[in-house]
């Protein structure tokens, strides 16, 4: 080891270059992005629901980043147009997700707008989809003898309903569903939006 100094300089230079390209440059590119026109900030309830989304670990199985039709048939699945950086303007931190064990949720509010449906599905996914592998979240709900005023009673098929009383949603469940219903990015993306357009030319013939 008789060329310590040049070696160290080279190593640092490579590190600096990588940081510049992978951290600093993207940050500069994204920080000037205004929210996509049509994107609404979250309400207090939706923000609480977002916390639930994180706490319940939804992100481990659900992504929030539909890809363009040139990359995957996400739009045909009803998952919406390809997302762009400015769609995440109010998400700190973003909840892009990396796994698609379940479907993408970026537009779940558009394709599944029903609160009642979501509550049933969170309480017991297999009440709707017999084959679903999603975990149930019964602890976001409680059983009561009678629903009190203001309670949201969830609808269950006969074979899943409790023998006595009713299942009502706790506040956490209602918050989470409010957040899911807010996930609706069906407005168009700005032309010069920042996103990975790789493979876009492969769409031919369109």
């Amino acid at each position, binding site marked *: 080891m*008789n060329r310590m100094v040049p070696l160290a300089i080279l190593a640092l230079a490579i590190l600096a270059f990588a940081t510049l390209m992978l951290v600093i440059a993207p940050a500069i590119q994204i920080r000037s992005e205004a929210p996509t026109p049509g994107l609404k900030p979250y309400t207090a309830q939706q923000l609480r629901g977002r916390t639930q989304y994180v706490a319940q670990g939804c992100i481990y199985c659900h992504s929030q980043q539909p890809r*363009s*039709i*040139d990359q995957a*048939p996400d*739009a*045909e*699945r*009803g998952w*919406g*147009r390809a997302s762009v950086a400015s769609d995440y303007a109010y998400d700190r931190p973003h909840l892009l997700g990396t796994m698609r064990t379940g479907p993408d949720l970026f*537009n779940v509010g*558009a*394709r*599944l*707008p*029903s*609160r*009642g*449906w979501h509550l*049933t599905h969170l309480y017991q996914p297999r*009440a*709707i*989809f*017999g084959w679903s592998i999603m975990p149930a979240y019964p602890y976001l709900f409680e059983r009561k003898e009678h629903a009190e005023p203001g309670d949201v009673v969830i*609808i269950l*098929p*006969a074979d899943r309903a409790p023998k006595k009383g009713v299942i009502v949603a706790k506040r956490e469940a209602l918050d989470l569903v409010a957040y899911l219903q807010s996930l609706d990015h*069906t407005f*168009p*993306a*700005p*032309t*010069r*939006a920042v*996103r990975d*357009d*790789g*493979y*876009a*030319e492969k*769409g031919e*013939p*369109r």
Partner: protein
Amino acid sequence: MESFEPYEEFKPIPLPVLIIAVALALWGVFTLLDNGKAVTVGRAERSDQIADQHANRQNGAELFVSRCATCHQPNGSGVEGAIPPLASSPFLKASPEVAMHILLNGIDGPIRVGDATFEGHMPSFASVLSDADIVRLVTHVRGTFADRHDLLTEGDVATARLLAGRRGAWQGGQEIAARLDASLGPQPPMSSATQAAIDPIAQKLVSQGNGQTWACASCHGMRGQGSASVPRLAGLPAAYIAKQLGDYVTGKRRNETMQLVARTLKPQDMRRIGDYYSVMRAPSNARASLGGDLVRGERLVLDGDWARGLPSCVSCHGPSTFGVAPSFPALSAQHPEYTAAQLTAWVSGTRDNSTGRLMNGIAARLNDADRRAVADYLATLPPVPAPATRGRTNGK
């Protein structure tokens, strides 16, 4: 110093490593350039999406061909006994506001043009044409077929559009003459067929559910417009809706959510829901969103592709894709995600309930791009002008 540090001889970098390094660098540059092209294409796609929603770039003649000619015919002759001719139509000779109001609201009632009376069901174009489109279209149509050239402004259309949202379709020529222009001459009155009274039981089912299942409107919307993969139901034939609900129960059509819903409905509920939605007129909220080729879509919908054994959509779903009761649903203004998903479902077998299994064969001959093209084109069409009276239901 006992230890001897071995002398390192200078060795040049081996040639293969150099070659690999140069190749990697070239690859990197190529990828950057290639990506530049992709970015251009991606931007063009996004700008198309915006353009489709806000400012259609067609001129008046092109708008006429793509929006009016399937019914009124390219030469404006109309269709004997069904669609009024545009040439020599008193509605076009009147002030430009008349044509504008008709485009914005549509017509649902009898009108008289020349010597003939037409039972008009014209769609409202308010949800599919921009203010500028309507100005260009009205100018072109009146100039071509009535030799009238006084102009309309976008401001007029914007003002009228605000009012248009609050009222339904024009109830025939008599109402248009009374409200807009008395010079239209005598127009036939609305037929005595009673306006369909809203069925309170169906309305409760739709808006609140039956206690055992979710309300229809919680997904399909209060106006039956649907969204994304939730289909639009407004204006579909009553018997078609009832049949689909029945088919969910028997499993001929598979959709877990709808199967659960349909099992809680009695057959008479299904018919009530069908009747309820079939007379509903709702603006379109569908947008071409799958990146389909609209020109190809238009060709497939209007002419088919006989080289592949594909008949046109309109040969069964009607010349304006407004459906033919009871077997053939309306297709216009349907959400493209839903249409494309159904075309896939016919092939995969999750849906197997079409008349004579016609759709199975047709869907199998559409490739991915065609599916998206058809779905996107249908989404650009105006919503079904559902006849609002039960006396005159779909077809026969």
